[in-house]
């Protein structure tokens, strides 16, 4: 049977982006039909009764029974059978959603307020999830602070990301394109900004990995290295174009000559090349609760041990580059022999 509302599905369901859509969408439509039929029946009967049995001059209601065991049995057993059917459909679909494919590639997902970090099998990491069409992937989810949830509507896939527990989920993308990854468990100020891109590439997995997931610090400009770290670790709370986020923007930070704090005396710098400035940035990243910038709350986690001194240096280079509020990709350095 052709489902006439199927072509309407684009108005209430996202595009089918993974094999899961073929599991969940047919049941979604089936329940939609069951609901429409029973709801229309209930409302029509209710309105019809309200009209023909309304109180009016000259109307005398006829006697009617106050219960009917047969009728009540019918409308107990009937819905029960339908519900049992829905339950089994949902349960069997659920087991597909939770049984990972054997050929799935493994990606580590680390969530924190308010960043997503994806670590690939080759050790590279980034803030964009690169996938290859028709290649099943298995995500190992872990949170560094509070509960987050991984959700891509097109994939019909969702799993909570818990601190202290490792959850895994899998899916097989079937649609090439760029999608949004949402955090769907409330996690604080930047919850609605915890949105990142998921790109499904047409290339097979190995080729896709070679093209998009290969980063060597030595092959890139220090500012680009810093930008990559910024995207993964800082962008959830700090903008560089001056817009408001949970933490202060990086615009103008490198050129600032002083900084005021919630408590304690203000600091003065002699520019971004001065030791005072570098020590301040380093301290802010490693021990963020030491000085809180005026107008902000003490919310930042410590990055002590997560970033090497070399990486701190890249971030400082990046801060200098975005001082004016814009970022332009620096050229790749010439390969040295």
């Amino acid at each position, binding site marked *: 049977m052709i489902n006439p509302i199927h072509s309407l599905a684009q108005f209430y*369901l996202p595009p089918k982006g993974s094999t*899961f859509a073929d599991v*969940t969408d047919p*049941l979604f439509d089936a*329940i939609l039909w*069951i*609901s429409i039929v029973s*709801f229309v029946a*209930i409302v029509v009967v*209710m*309105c019809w*009764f309200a009209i023909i*049995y*309304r*109180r009016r001059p000259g109307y005398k*209601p006829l*006697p*009617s*029974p*106050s219960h*009917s065991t047969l*009728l*009540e049995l019918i*409308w107990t057993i009937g*819905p029960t059978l339908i*519900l*049992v059917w*829905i*339950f089994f*459909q*949902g*349960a069997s*679909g*659920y*087991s597909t959603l*939770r049984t990972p494919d054997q050929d799935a590639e493994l990606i580590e997902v680390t969530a924190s307020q308010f960043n997503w970090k994806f670590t690939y099998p080759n050790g590279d990491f980034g803030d964009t999830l690169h996938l290859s069409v028709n290649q099943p992937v298995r995500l190992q989810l872990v949170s560094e*602070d*509070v*509960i987050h949830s991984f*959700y891509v509507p097109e994939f019909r*896939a*969702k*799993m*909570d990301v*818990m*601190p*202290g*527990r490792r*959850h895994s989920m899998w899916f097989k993308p079937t649609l090439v394109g760029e999608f*949004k990854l*949402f955090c*769907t468990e*409330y996690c*604080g100020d*930047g*919850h*609605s*900004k915890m949105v990142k891109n998921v790109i499904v590439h047409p290339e097979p997995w190995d080729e896709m990995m070679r093209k998009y997931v290969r980063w060597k610090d030595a092959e890139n400009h220090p500012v680009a290295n810093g930008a990559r770290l910024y995207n993964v670790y800082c962008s959830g709370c700090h903008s560089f174009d001056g817009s*408001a986020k949970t933490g202060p923007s990086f615009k103008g930070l490198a050129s600032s000559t002083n900084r005021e704090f919630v408590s304690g005396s203000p600091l003065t710098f002699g520019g971004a090349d001065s030791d005072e400035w570098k020590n301040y940035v380093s301290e802010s990243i490693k021990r963020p609760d030491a000085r809180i910038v005026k107008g902000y709350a*003490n919310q930042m986690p410590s990055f002590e041990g997560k970033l090497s001194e070399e990486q701190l240096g890249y971030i400082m280079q990046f801060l200098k580059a975005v001082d004016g509020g814009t970022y332009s990709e620096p050229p790749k350095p010439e390969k040295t022999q």
Partner: protein
Amino acid sequence: MATVTQKQQLFGHAASNHYLDASRGVMSWIFTLDHKRIAIMYMYGVIASLFLAGIFALVLRTELYTPGPWFLSNAVYNQMFTLHGAVMVFLFIIPSVPAIIGNFVLPMMLGAKDVAFPRLNLASLWLYWLGGIFFIVVLSTTQLDTGWTFYTPYSTSSSKTNVIAATLGAFILGFSSIFTGLNFIVTINTMRPKGMTWFRLPLLLWGLYSTSIIQVLATPVLGITLLLLIVERTLKLGIFDPAYGGDPLLYQHFFWFYSHPAVYIMILPAMGVISEMLAVHCRKEVFGYKFIAMSSVAIALIGFLVWGHHMFTSGQSELTSLVFSAITFSVAVPSAVKVFNWLCTMYRGDINLSTPMLYVMSFIFLFGIGGLTGLWLGALSTDIPLHDTYFVVAHFHYVMVGGTMTALLGGLFHWWPKFSGRMYNEPLGKLFCFFVFAGFNLTFFPQFIMGSLGMPRRYHEYAEIYQIYHQASTWGAFTLGIGIFGAVMVLVYAWFFGRKASGNPWGAATLEWQCSSPPSFHNFEHRVIVSEPYDFESVIYDESVDGYIPVIPKRDLAPNQQPATATH
């Protein structure tokens, strides 16, 4: 037969010597033990909470008119939805029907003078008011931002706001709820007069009885959970926070073990109100009385076993999810049958399309949508993409607001002649009922669509494709706001200037309508005669009182005919 004056005294409007002017002064209200005055004071608090939390909702909806931030920061938006949810849940919807309508009519429906423990009843009112004021002051001064669910470890470790004071407020309010539940259980068990058998209880009392069982059994679990949360936050014991060896899933189990049954605390009394109003305004016995009565108890008991359906994506085991999904579907059956029974009650009825009846019909419409959309969320595979999206937001608003709030408003109109002794303005009542109905659907129906399209809940900023649904929702919210405000104003006007109501203006057969309007301090001036709750032949319209009076069965004191002599 009684004279017209006698009839007016017995069954007409009580001009004086009723509960409202039995004593005067503020102290006579604050220290009253009268269940009716306690109900009225609950009503002030509950309606004020509804308006306050409603204003928060309008602020949220206005802010969501645009995809980006408009006039609120991320942090203030999060505080706003926390305030909206927490005030609506703890101060409005949980107390709403039991504390107002339950407190007012429960003893009278039973044929009793008061509840079993009037002092406990007053204590529960004080706890509600003190806890409520404390809660609102804390929430609005400390910028609580955890959402009403207080999920760990956000609430124990990450949130910088005063979670301890807020949970303490919810803890106090929990006791108010427990006291009311305990009082109702004891009252219904011990204070039924002769002739009031269990199966002669009006269906509202079955609903309140089932609700009270949940309140007494489930609320302590919330209390303990909130105390553990406080302990975790202060002492870092390692119960819920993995940083100290705790488990955040444990908190979710504890929390939903209360908060799912709490959904039935919200809806069961509302279903009882609907059964009462439907019977009276159709002048027909409720179809399948025993089934409706028993289904309330069944829903209350099974409702304890479905909490895990809030956690299908939380990483609980597959088997656990399967079991919770199956039990969830089993609760759907009694709810569906209730709807069919209500429809059948209308069959061949004598339907008075009054304001309460219109609220009943909009309840069936909205609860129908709320119940049916639960099917997507109860089924495991379809719940995965829908979990924590606006689909869920729309679903529970259809059940709680479309269900409970509609029933509460309808119930206030229905019992207003009893509360105030006055009739409300019927055309205006109907007009604002229509505003509530239309505004509600415009607010929440688009949320189903954006939810199934993937819009996550609790999002301050969102993608532009969802904007049209958000805009429709915002317009709807203002329409709904006008409807609720208008409906309450119609009632307020009626309280002071309404036409005087007789004792039984609707022709109802339950006992509270045998009292005068408003009832006297002791409710009944004479011993009550208990009959079937829906025997509408027992009352008849009498023009001289502009209401219904009991039919006094014709009885002869002695046979006035000589028995025929036997002939052989």
